[in-house]
């Protein structure tokens, strides 16, 4: 196990390095002069010169990349071109809503997806199975920004059951947090729930045809025990392998859903920064999210190897 972990950790390092290089290179993909693009059309020569200087654009590429990575390792992501705040501070201020929405979305994906998948496999080829599978395809066809807007108008504006906008910290007020986070978390979880449901279904179908399930049925166990105890555990285990994938999907959803529900999270920060062309902030956010996805994939692999020892060899 230790050897496996060491090997996986080592193989993640070049990927994280690639994430950093990609993040850095984005600035240099600008057509023509990056500083000119950032400054806008009406900028004076001095302004452009100032931006060039503050971003170090007047030095060679490899030189810039080296010092940028060194800064990142020291925890310095530069300053916002717009407000002058430290990017690290902007990100830490906005971290909590995004993290709690993502975690809640992940929980919802699993809590909705696993039972639906089990149901579909149990009643395979019936109308229940077909409708679950149809809803699952719809799950990743629904655009988050539209579903969110629809839920908002129905449950928040028309029915007035839940608040329409804003975010309450889970540390201040747990029921308040849930009321505010329910609609956005549900919105981001639909595609994840769809993926989990499909996976659980196909695994469950495989497991249900195993000999030991026939044995369990033959010795007269009730169907609920057979499906719920004997089949569910091996069938739901592989869901762990897609947590990394789900996380990337959820984070994509969070970016737009935070805009819909006016939640001050990382996604909103990224969207605002993109509209203002605040490059250091954009770089900071995508660097953090890219790294989180790589680490999540790493942890997923390790967790799965721990749960299913066959993977290690």
């Amino acid at each position, binding site marked *: 196990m230790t050897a496996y972990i060491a090997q996986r950790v080592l193989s993640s390092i070049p990927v994280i390095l690639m994430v950093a290089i990609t993040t850095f290179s984005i600035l240099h993909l600008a057509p023509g002069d990056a500083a000119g693009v950032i400054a806008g059309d009406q900028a004076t020569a001095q302004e452009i010169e100032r931006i060039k200087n503050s971003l170090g654009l007047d030095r060679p590429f490899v030189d810039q990349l080296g010092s940028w990575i060194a800064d990142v390792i020291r925890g310095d992501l530069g300053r916002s071109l717009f407000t002058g705040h430290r990017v690290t501070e902007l990100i830490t201020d906005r971290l909590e809503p995004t993290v709690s929405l993502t975690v809640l979305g992940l929980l919802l994906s699993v809590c909705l997806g696993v039972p639906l998948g089990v149901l579909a496999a149990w009643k395979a080829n019936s109308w229940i199975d077909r409708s679950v599978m149809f809803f699952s*395809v719809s799950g990743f066809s629904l655009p988050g*920004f539209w579903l969110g807007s629809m839920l908002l108008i129905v449950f928040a504006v028309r029915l007035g059951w839940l608040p329409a906008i804003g975010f309450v910290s889970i540390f201040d007020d747990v029921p308040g947090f849930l009321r505010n986070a329910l609609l956005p978390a549900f919105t981001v979880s639909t595609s994840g729930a769809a993926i989990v449901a499909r996976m659980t279904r196909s695994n469950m179908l495989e497991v249900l045809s195993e000999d030991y399930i026939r044995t369990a049925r033959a010795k007269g166990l009730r169907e609920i025990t057979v499906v719920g105890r004997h089949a569910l555990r091996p069938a739901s285990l592989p869901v762990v392998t897609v947590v990394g994938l789900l996380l990337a999907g959820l984070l994509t959803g969070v970016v737009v859903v935070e805009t819909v529900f006016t939640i001050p999270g990382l996604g909103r920060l990224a969207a605002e920064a993109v509209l203002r062309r605040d*490059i250091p902030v954009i770089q900071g956010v995508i660097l953090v999210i890219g790294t989180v996805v790589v680490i999540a994939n790493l942890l997923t692999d390790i967790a799965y190897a721990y749960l299913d020892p066959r993977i290690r060899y």
Partner: protein
Amino acid sequence: MLIVRRVIFAKYGRATGTLTRYVSQNPNLSFGLLILVTVSLAAIFASVIGQVDPLKLDVQHRLEGPSSSHWFGTDHLGRSVYSRTIHGGRLSLVVGASVVAITTVIGGLLGMIAGYDRRMDALLMRVLDGVMAFPGLLLAMALMAIWGASLQNVIIAISVSASPSMARVMRSAVLSLRERPYVEAARAEGASTWRILMVHIAPNTLAPMTIQTTFLLAIAMLTEAGLSFIGVGVPPSVPSWGNMVSTGRMYQEVAPWVVIFPGVVLTLTVLAANLVGDGLRDKLDPRLRGKL
């Protein structure tokens, strides 16, 4: 008539026959194809069936509900939502088709190189893993911030974020094909690498690549809408399903149709692409039936 059918059948053999039968027996696949064909036709003939100019302002008739003159109602500037939805479909399909074409060529080539050449494999895959770590929409947003709003930039930005997944599909197909006896035979005969890749390997990757392109079409259309929704997609004057929802949201309490129609059409189109992808996969690669 019968003779003609017999000739066609003799010429194209069983393949056409089984495929049409398969499509007609699979309700999800036929539903998906029907919607995709309808949306494509509507997009091609947008200026004919679009009732009025999607950019025509008519402030006297702003935020009016669906009626016989404006089937989907009008927006806050009195523009026809129906006409804008049809033209938005044209944009969505143009972006989707272009992204599919670009990623098939670029992702396909990269995947082929990685799958066939062991030395390049490690390097290329690390690079692609690095790009894939970013959620697609976020990477496309960052690129749009640098490049500025335009149709061309939307297509390139989405292609950049979508190419790695195409390359992965191609790579795994090539990895399993390169050890086949007929490829070995071609190599033994002295065929060049290029010839082996293009003549012997590429045609056999058609099945997995076709499946991937339909899913990619769905993802590209969703990403385009997402970019336009945030405000970094095509310029705001161009009707797009994403920016229609985004501006319509401000008026959705009084005029819900402004948001409902583009969203429903977008969802149906993406759903159709996903259904076609699922149906094709069940047909072309039955081992994966019902999986991810």
